């Protein structure tokens, strides 16, 4: 994990980022093989390392539209283990629901990753360390962060591709809200909203930048996301080692202009590449996979 106690400064001379897009028809496809192939596009230093997969679990959802699908989580877990990772755990701190076990039971997560006492950590109830924010974009000067996350060698953000009624879209950067424990911040983590959602997204990712992102866009959510929208079969997995580039690519696939998304614009200054010319696409092209998402009227301005 890229954590160090130094301030981040804007960079205008960043090398290009690589983002992989793969068309995936459904969760019945050979997702394990596809995720394995995606990861082989990147030279990931996970040999002998502890890997933490951070999915997006919000509420119990029997429809499978709100939360990252466990098929994708299992595929990532198996692939990282095959690449020589010392351990791979799944960790999440749901933002609306205190009964995390209820969410993972509806997902049948145990059937995909094995006994939860070894493979899953509820970040809402983890021990925390107070860590100064590296970006200081919001008024929060420090964050209470879970020791499980701070102790992981390699953090993978695994969101669902969704619209969001406060910030437009929720992808790998916004997904990192889930590492902040509810025991300290509440359900919902309201203090992050009061500090400014966009600025808080920057502070969290600036302090604990995910090393890799895999976005579950096989079935995403459009309209009044991230909870009450409609299923959108976008049919893609999007992945890369620059979360800003991954999110910008997802936004383009969703028919949105990343430069108009406030937190992505801020993140592009400090954390990664947003401009299309600075992102090398591998696999499918944006044009071939583009599936415009419906957005709420308040976010029409984000549409291409």
């Amino acid at each position, binding site marked *: 994990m890229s954590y160090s106690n130094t301030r981040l400064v804007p960079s205008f001379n960043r090398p290009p980022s690589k983002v992989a897009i793969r068309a995936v028809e459904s969760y019945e496809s050979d997702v394990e093989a596809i995720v394995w192939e995606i990861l082989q596009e990147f030279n990931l230093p996970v040999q002998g390392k502890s890997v933490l997969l951070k999915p997006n679990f919000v509420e119990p959802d029997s429809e499978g539209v709100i939360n990252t699908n466990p098929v994708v989580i299992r595929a990532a877990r198996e692939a990282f283990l095959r690449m020589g990772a010392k351990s791979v755990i799944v960790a999440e701190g749901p933002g609306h629901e205190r*009964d995390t076990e209820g969410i993972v039971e509806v997902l049948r997560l145990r059937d995909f990753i094995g006994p939860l006492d070894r493979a899953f950590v*509820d970040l809402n109830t*983890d021990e925390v360390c107070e860590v100064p924010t590296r970006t200081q974009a919001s008024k929060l000067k420090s964050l209470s962060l879970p020791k499980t996350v701070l102790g992981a060698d390699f953090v993978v953000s695994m969101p669902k591709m969704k619209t969001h009624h406060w910030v437009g879209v929720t992808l790998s950067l916004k997904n990192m809200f889930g590492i902040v424990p509810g025991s300290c911040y509440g359900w919902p983590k*309201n203090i992050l909203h009061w500090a400014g959602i966009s600025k808080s997204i920057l502070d969290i990712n600036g302090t604990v930048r995910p090393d890799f992102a895999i976005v579950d866009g096989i079935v995403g959510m459009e309209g009044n996301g991230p909870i009450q929208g409609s299923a959108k079969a976008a049919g893609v997995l999007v992945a890369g080692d620059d979360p800003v580039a991954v999110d910008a690519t997802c936004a383009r696939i969703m028919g949105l202009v990343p430069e108009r998304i406030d937190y992505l614009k801020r993140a592009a200054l400090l954390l990664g590449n947003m401009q299309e010319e600075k992102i090398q696409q591998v696999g499918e092209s944006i044009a071939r996979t583009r599936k415009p998402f419906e957005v709420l009227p308040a976010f029409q301005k984000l549409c291409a």
Partner: protein
Amino acid sequence: MSTVAQLETLPVKELNTIPLPPDFFSDLLRTAQNTDGGWGYRSGLASCTEPTAWSLLALRSQEPPDGKTLASASAWLRSAQLAKGGWPTANGKDPGCWTTALACLALLKISGPSDSAVLRGLKWLWETWPAEGSLLWRLGQRWQQRTEQIVRQDFSLRGWSWTPETASWVEPTAYVLILIRNVPKGLYPPKANERIDLAEKMLYDRACPGGGWNTGNPLVYGVPGVPRIGPTVWALLALRNRQSHRKNVEGIQWLERNYPSICGPGSLALANLCLRVYGRNVSPVEQQLRKFYERNQFLKSVPAMAWASLASGGIPDWLVCNSQTRGGA
């Protein structure tokens, strides 16, 4: 997935082959207590305010009471209290927050309402207001024309927040109201009744259309929010002396309808307790909770163990309905 209904119809796992003591969950809690007297959120983690408060409330109901355990837990809670009277989430952290109501309730039930730590905690709660809903905040929002257009609710109604200087939410408000009902009216400060009325109105305002509560946004962009078990339980328990109110009736009906599909042990324990407080005839829940425990060990959650312990016993005295609208300890 194992819902309550499925657990009831599944071939019963041979519980007899794994003998479990009758006070299984309270024994789990005792085993999970740290040497400093408190409990962590999960077994083996550093002590925190909320799990210690729930464990204390659960274990004080056991017969015979384990004086040593209760004394060390009370001592831990006292040591965690901040100079201003509030409790933080964990010892050594700052500032006071939503856990104050739970710590106060636990100490009140152990030592009585005149306990100095309880009185200081109550003072902190009476004096703490959420930032949202203040006149200044509402003027700012009107100028920005933002939040009030997205979230339809009456922002002049204020309860309590999770963390200082933020918004009112259902659960922290409910915790305080439950505490206050256990405090004798003689200890109320001036204007306490107005504050309680405001908080109760806030809870009713945040009820989801059709029944039940979510965390506290019943209408976003005009779309009704989906109720959740936890917030519904806490709101109903906080408003339990108004059981004939339309929103109580809708809420308890929603809870009854959704009870069979509950998939998590914490939600199941709390829902069972709430239905019993409202006089509903529900089956004893301990066997189902044990099956949940065998499956995932509650993810080692100490609050879930405490709620399971509470749900396995009678209705706790701090949730008993009384004829008074308020107070009555």
